[in-house]
């Protein structure tokens, strides 16, 4: 696949803090690329550099081989950005602001208007086109925020937490809409929502402390934390240490979090009776037993840890 967006050795420092440290990644044409990381990982700084809003201390970003610099407006215009915060002109109607931003991208008034109306229709906002943005509901404002990023029909769409603050209906709608854009546009999305990244992204990059930790498809990433499924057993009584000691020789991947045993294995259900017997032998009494598939969250936690960041 053709590489559309490439970041090479991006570094950005704020005094003693290195917000982004030697970040390199490539996003291919038509791909949905997820950028995950805890708060303060450097996602927004990376996005700002990729959009050309922020100049890196070193490294560069190219779009189809052309370097984005502060002055290169035409290259910058190939990117559409949907920021995490709702950024709208409250005193303008939906249509007015979309037409305005379209014209700022060099579109003619009529073309901008037609494009705006099409996007408003796609995002179920056409009925509200003459309503002031400040009078819209939060969900509508979020959808308008997304539409604003698309008005100039950019080749690359950057979505910063696109589902943040949305009600379930709007979330499904936005997710479906972004999915519909996939393949037609190259999409770079940042999110905290692992489920969202898992469902939408073709590839996912996880970063922490400004550094890129891993990049791969969600499936491949999930495999890195263990093959198969996950069996979680809450211990109501008995020693966690004794339980671990008796299970570790039987199964290769057994760990514990608080009062929960976490067992990863291919066909883990087949091992359930063996596990329960072993626990009984050390007088450990199981409580709730859960079976689930590996998730990106497992990958995320295994890479970034459980410690709170903020």
């Amino acid at each position, binding site marked *: 696949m053709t590489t559309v967006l490439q970041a090479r050795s991006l570094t950005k420092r704020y005094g003693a803090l290195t917000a982004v440290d030697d970040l390199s990644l490539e996003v291919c044409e038509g791909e949905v690329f997820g950028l995950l990381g805890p708060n303060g990982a450097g996602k927004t700084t990376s996005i700002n550099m990729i959009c050309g809003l922020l100049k890196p201390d070193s490294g560069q970003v190219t779009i189809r081989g052309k370097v984005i610099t502060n002055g290169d407006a035409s290259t910058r215009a190939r990117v559409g950005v949907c*920021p995490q915060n709702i950024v709208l002109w409250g*005193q303008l109607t939906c249509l007015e602001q979309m037409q305005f931003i379209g014209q*700022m991208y060099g579109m003619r008034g009529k073309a901008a208007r037609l494009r705006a109306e099409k996007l408003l229709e796609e995002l179920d906002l056409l009925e509200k086109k003459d309503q002031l943005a400040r009078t819209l509901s939060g969900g509508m404002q979020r959808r308008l925020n997304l539409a604003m990023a698309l008005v100039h029909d950019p080749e690359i769409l950057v979505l910063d937490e696109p589902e943040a603050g949305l009600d379930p209906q709007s979330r499904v709608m936005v997710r479906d809409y972004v999915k519909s854009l996939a393949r037609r546009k190259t999409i770079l999305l940042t999110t905290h929502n692992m489920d969202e990244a898992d469902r939408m992204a073709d590839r996912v990059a996880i970063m922490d402390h400004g550094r890129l930790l891993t990049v791969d498809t969600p499936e491949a990433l999930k495999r890195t934390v263990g093959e198969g499924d996950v069996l979680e057993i809450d211990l109501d009584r008995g020693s966690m240490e004794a339980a671990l000691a008796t299970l570790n020789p039987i199964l290769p991947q057994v760990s514990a979090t608080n009062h929960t045993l976490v067992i990863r294995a291919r066909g883990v259900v087949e091992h359930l009776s063996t596990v329960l017997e072993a626990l009984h032998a050390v007088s450990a009494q199981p409580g709730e037993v859960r079976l689930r598939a590996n998730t990106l969250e497992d990958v995320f936690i295994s890479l970034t840890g459980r410690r709170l960041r903020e």
Partner: protein
Amino acid sequence: MKAWTVFLKTLREMLRDKWILGLTLVFAPFFVFLYWMILSGGSTSYTVLVINKDVGVQRSDGSTFRSGEHILAAIRGITYADGSPLLKATIASDRTEADRILRDRGAAAFILIPEDFSQTLQKLESGDRSITTMITFGGDLSNPYYMVAVNLALTAVDGYIQEVTGQQPLIGYMEEPLGASAARSEFEAYVPASLIFAVIMLIFLASMSVAREIETGTLRRLQLTPISSLEILGGVTGALVLIGVVAITLAFLVAVLCGFHSQGPLWVAILVGAVSSLSVIGLGMVVASFTHTVSQAFIVANFPMAMMMFFSGVIYPLPKVTVFTVGAREIGLYDILPPTHAVVALNKVLTLGAGLEEVVYELAALTILSILYFGIGVWLFKRFHLHSG
């Protein structure tokens, strides 16, 4: 083209922000109206306390000559061109009472007529130059009305003495007013400064409009588009100048409805207002460059606003602090404030009847200041808000 689109968008936003727009437009007309309300009964009368200790003197025909009372009448006889009194003479029994009233600013000055005043006048009248007497006057010298009141009162006293004694003054004085200044009512004298208020108030609208774009993040959205800071600020400035011109025109309209007569062409005064608006808006851009929120912009804008109010001669004239000289013209410290030139130009046009050619210097100075402040504003704005560092 993009600046034009920004202009239309800014104008649309301002028209919908009715409170801010309303306050900006109404501010100067309201002041004009307020002055008219206060001064509609005529111009200011300066109160003078007369402490009349004169005991009078017996004339040869048996009547009593009481010159102290005549002085009182002479003071009350000084009037404006329209016949309304310039001085209001009030009797005070003694210095103690006078001092109390003066401390409370109930009067501008006092005049103490001595016991022997009539006697002295009578002797002078008969040609006896061997005696003299002393009229005492005084008051709070920091009271801006003091000098006016004392000057006028002493003129009245002098006139009366000359009349009674028949003595001609050694030197005659004649007053020749500039332009139509003598015929101006006090209300009309206040109008130019009121109009400048409309211009000065634009600094808030200008700085807050730009700061709003910063605070809401819409500036970042604009930054992603291929638009320059000049186009953004140019568009915003255009809309603000239009609002400024409307505000000034409204203020003029209210002034005219209240009886104001411009001695010079009104369009020149509006032109002065428009160019002044541009330079004040430029200052507003400079303010916006240093701020990130609307409330910050409001607070910071108070500083240049106060400077313009107090140091440009809008409220009261200040002595010129010459910094350098260009040809025969002295360039003062306060000349960096746009209203300094606007006040002079508007006074020339509205009161002295000047035309365009007589305010060319002020217009040129305002244009230079506009370019200067706007240029600095754009540069700072680019540096602090549109850079990608």
